[in-house]
Every structure is written in C-alpha cells, then in structure tokens.
C-alpha cells in the first residue's frame, strides 16, 4: 500500500490544491503576455492541472485515503474539522477534475479569438477549486464560502461573450437568482446557528441528537428543542439554497436560460460539475448535520420526504418541458434538470431502508452523468463552432458529414435516456432497484415514467442527425482537434464505464455507506 499520509495532512486536499495552484499558474502565464495570450499554453496548463488533480485523487483513492481505519488510511479531518477528506469528497473531486479537463480541452477551439483567454481559464479553474472544496467542506461556513467560490466565477463565465445578448441575459438571470438564493442560504445558516449555536456540521448533529440541554461547545444551558421552529425554517432555507446549485425545483428556473445562453463548454461545466458539487453539499449537510430521525423528532418533518417530493417534481418538470423544446441546447438544459431529479432520489432514500444503496446509486448516476452530459453539451459546442444553428432541424443530416462526432452524440443521447448497455442505463437501473428496495414505489414509478418520456426527445435528436435530410447544405465541416478530442474522450468513457462499473459502484457504495454511518 502506498503511504501518502507521510505528507502533511493538508496534502489530503490534493485535488483542490492542485486546481487552485493551476489557477495561479495560469494567472502568471497570462500576466506575462497579457495581450497575446498563448491559447495552447493556457488551455494545456488548465487541462494538465485538472488531469494532475485527477491523478492525485485517483492515487489517494487507491491508497485508501478517506477509507475508515483499519482498512484504509482513515478519514482525514483538517483545520479543526472545518474540512474533511473522505471517500465522498474524493469521489466528487474526481468528477470535478474530469469535467474541468474536458471543458478546458474543448475550450481551446471554442474560445479561439476571445480577448480574455487567461481570465477565462483562470475563472474555470477557480470555480473548479470551489467545487472541489465544496466536496470537502464540513462546516456551514466552509460550505457557504466554497459555494460562493464556485458560483462567482461561474456568473462571469456565463456572461463572458460580452457582446452577445444571449450570453449576457443568461449571466444576468443566473446572477440575480444566484444572489437571491445565496441570500436565502446564508439566512438559513444564521437560523441554524441560532437554534444550535454551532456551524460545524458534526457539531450541529451533536446538538440535534444529544438532548443535554447544553450548548455543545460552551456547556451553557441551551435547549435546542425549544428552537425547533428556527431550526425547521433554517433547514428549509438551506434546502432551497442547495436546490439552486443543483437546479432542482423550485429553483430550476435559471438553468434553461443560463445553459442556453452560456458558451457551450461553460454550460457543460455548470450542468455537470457544478451540479455534482451542489449534490455533494446536499448529501454532506443533510446526512451529517441533520440525522433523519433525530431531526424529524425535533422539527416534526422528515427531510427525506421533502427530497422525495422535490425529486418527483424536478424530474417531471424537467422532462416534460424538455419534450417540447425546439432548441437543442435548451432541451439539454431541461433534461439536465430532469437528471437532477433522478439524483435527488438518493437523498430521498436516506430515511428509508437500503439507504446506502439508493445514495450510492445516486452518486453513480452523477458520475456517469458527468461524462454523458458534458459530452452532449460539447457536441452543441461543436455545432456552434460549425455555425449550423440551434434547433433540431438545423442538426438534420449532420451524421453524414461528421459521422464520428454524431456517433459520440448518439452514445450520449442513448446513455442519457438510459438504454442498455450504456453507462446511463446501469445507474438508472440501480436507482430504480434501490428505490424499490427502499420501498419508495411512487418515486420508482415516476422514475420509470420519466425515463420513458425522455427517450422521446433524446431519440428525436438522434433521428435528426442520422435520418433527416439537411435543410440547408453547410458544405464541409471543420474538425477542431480540441473539441473532437474532448467529445471522443467523453464518449469513450460513457461506454467504458460499462465494464468498469464494478470499481465505480464499489467506491460510490463505500462513499455512501461511510457518509451514512459516520
């Protein structure tokens, strides 16, 4: 067994640190030649940094960092428990690093000619750092700060095509709703603080479960049960703030607009990595700080039921709205709302039996989703690069002129729809199986109905690229190296996930078990 633990403990944050340091390196490169940015160098550094972060994360995972003793190197708690590196954290750091690498490679072609190259890549990296930190955050303070670190650069990235109305409008809406939701989130934090007197997640849990009548840190008299209303409102407000980041109902409204208007690689970044980071916060905050039964005893409702309701509402609204879109990017945006609904099932199942199975399945879905959804948006990036247009009809007949890219697109669509034997099928299958095991028949039913519906609009795009006659002849299409490389990498991973599902499933299940039993 490799021994990474001889390094200082803070090194356990490796992936996040690497991402942050790469951002600084990109700053340096950019300030060296501010007016003639070397696109290749910047994109390459970004991709290399993300891949390095990925490598470090994989290494830690293999070395057993985050696996509880005695099997592994133990969960590493840093800065007095403000951050914690366990399997869940590493798992999501990997997701973030992968998506960042794909996005960086694709942006090399997509952002060609844009004046703010250095800023673009550094913002991507800073947002990725924020997401990786979110994965490890273990206090409402760090959760909030990391969330903002992920969000603030994202607002600017969405609006970075500054003279493009769509991009600016998207940035505006994303920012305004984001600011609103973070205000709600921080107000929720203040109420939870008022009720429990602490902000660190495990201390909050201690305050909720232990009915000592004392403040957990100071030992002064403090009766949490008397503050049930504050705590309840606080939890609901936290839920809403998280729903924004994961683009779940009722805070999904920004998503279609932001994804549609944003540069396509950024849309991929937000809908995959940022969403996954939102989920890790949801999982961490709710499973660690608010143990289901104790919380339910205190505030009178079981938050997993609230998540079940949100899950069903989110998947239904996302899929139904996606079914009527004409614009491909917007269809994908709504479909990504639908997928947030699937992932929410993981939290809905926490209160029921077989919970580590459901939560593990949700983690797997987020992992697979990172590839297939990023890939799908990158295809849109490619289409924008070609300038073929944005509606289904504009995509007609692309299969003949760009067969490789369209094969990749087909893989993504069928995987998103959950058709075997692609990766998306397995994760949905497990979600379905898990929710049956957990006895959530209604949620399982909604999952099946929605997947059936989703096939309709996904296959519509496949049909358009392969089977329809093109409306106009676009001539020959370029094959930008970066975009193609990212696209093919995502497609290969979506397929390869199938035989490699064992390890992924294992680590996801382990992560889920660990976070639920800690």
């Amino acid at each position: 067994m490799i021994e990474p633990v001889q390094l200082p403990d803070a090194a356990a944050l490796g992936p996040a640190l690497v991402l942050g340091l790469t951002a600084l390196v990109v700053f340096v490169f950019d300030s060296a030649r501010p007016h003639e940015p070397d696109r290749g160098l910047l994109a390459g550094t970004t991709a290399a940094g993300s891949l390095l972060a990925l490598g470090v994360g994989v290494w830690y995972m293999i070395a057993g960092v985050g696996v509880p003793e005695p099997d592994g190197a133990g969960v590493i708690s840093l800065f007095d428990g403000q951050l914690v590196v366990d399997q869940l954290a590493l798992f999501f750091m990997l997701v973030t690093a992968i998506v960042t690498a794909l996005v960086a490679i694709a942006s090399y072609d997509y952002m060609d000619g844009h004046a703010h190259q250095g800023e673009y890549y550094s913002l991507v990296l800073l947002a990725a750092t924020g997401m990786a930190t979110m994965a490890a955050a273990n206090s409402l303070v760090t959760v909030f700060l990391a969330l903002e670190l992920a969000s603030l650069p994202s607002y600017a990235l969405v609006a970075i095509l500054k003279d493009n109305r769509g991009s600016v409008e998207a940035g505006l809406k994303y920012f305004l709703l984001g600011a609103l939701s973070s205000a709600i989130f921080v107000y929720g934090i203040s109420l939870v603080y008022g009720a429990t007197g602490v902000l660190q997640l495990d201390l909050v849990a201690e305050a909720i479960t232990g009915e000592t009548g004392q403040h957990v840190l100071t030992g002064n008299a403090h009766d949490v049960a008397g503050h049930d209303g504050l705590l309840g409102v606080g939890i609901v407000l936290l839920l809403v703030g998280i729903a924004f980041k994961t683009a779940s109902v009722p805070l999904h409204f920004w998503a279609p607009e932001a994804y549609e208007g944003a540069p396509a690689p950024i849309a991929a970044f937000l809908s995959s990595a940022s969403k996954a980071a939102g989920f890790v916060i949801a999982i961490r905050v709710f499973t660690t700080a608010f143990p289901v039964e104790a919380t339910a005893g205190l505030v009178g409702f079981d938050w997993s039921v609230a998540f079940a309701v949100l899950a069903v509402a989110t998947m239904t609204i996302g899929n139904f709205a996606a079914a009527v879109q004409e614009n491909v990017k917007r269809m994908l945006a709504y479909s990504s709302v639908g997928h947030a609904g699937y992932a929410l099932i993981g939290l809905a199942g926490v209160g029921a039996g077989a919970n580590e199975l459901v939560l593990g399945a949700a983690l797997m879905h987020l992992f697979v989703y990172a590839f297939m959804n990023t890939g799908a948006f990158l295809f849109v990036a490619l289409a924008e690069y070609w300038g073929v247009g944005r509606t289904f009809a504009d995509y007609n007949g692309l299969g003949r002129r760009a067969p490789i890219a369209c094969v990749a697109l087909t893989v993504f669509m069928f995987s998103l729809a959950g058709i075997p034997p692609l990766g998306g099928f397995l994760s949905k299958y497990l979600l379905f199986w898990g929710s049956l095991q957990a006895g959530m028949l209604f949620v399982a039913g909604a999952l099946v109905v929605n997947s059936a519906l989703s096939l309709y609009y996904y296959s519509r795009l496949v049909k358009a690229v392969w089977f329809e006659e093109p409306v106009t002849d676009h001539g020959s299409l370029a094959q930008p190296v970066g975009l193609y490389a990212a696209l093919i990498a995502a497609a290969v991973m979506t397929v390869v996930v199938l035989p490699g599902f064992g390890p992924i499933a294992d680590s996801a299940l382990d992560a889920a078990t660990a976070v639920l039993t800690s």
Partner: protein
Amino acid sequence: MMAIEGYVLLSAGLFCIGLFGILTRRNALMFLMAVELMVNAAVINLVAFALYHGTLTGQVFGLFVLGLAAAEVAIGLGIILVLYRNFGTIDVSVPTTMRW
C-alpha cells in the same frame, strides 16, 4: 439591551423588505441592493445569536458574509454594466429573449 426576539424579528423584517424589493422592482441595481438587505439581515441574526450563545462564531462568520457580499456586488455591477452595453437599459424585465 433588546431581547433576542427583537433582533430576530428585525432581521426577519429586513429580509422580507429586501425580498419585497426584489419582487416589485425591476431595476437591476435595486435588485442588487435588495439582495444586500437580505444578506445583511442574515448578518444581524449571526451577530445577535453570537451574543445569545456566547460564542464568537456568528460574529466572525458575519464578517466573512460581509466580505462575500462585497465580492458579489462587484460581479453584479460588472454584469449590469455589460447588460447596459447590450440592451441599453438595466431593467431586468427587458432581457427575455430566452424563455419557454
């Protein structure tokens, strides 16, 4: 000194005034200010609860929140600037090219 209920009610009021602004005003700058009100309501809570519990956690976090609010405003102003350059207005109800 005011009882703790007073501060919490004050902050709830401030929060809802901010919210009222968001829901009824269309000027992007007003929107931004209203959000600031809501954030500051949270800060009032944090500081009051810090005294209530006898730990400084809330106070320190309140400082961080103020810092973040400043950062958010900086970006908000940047976005409003590009909004103005593109749409010639900072009315948030004008950019509706994307919907449905």
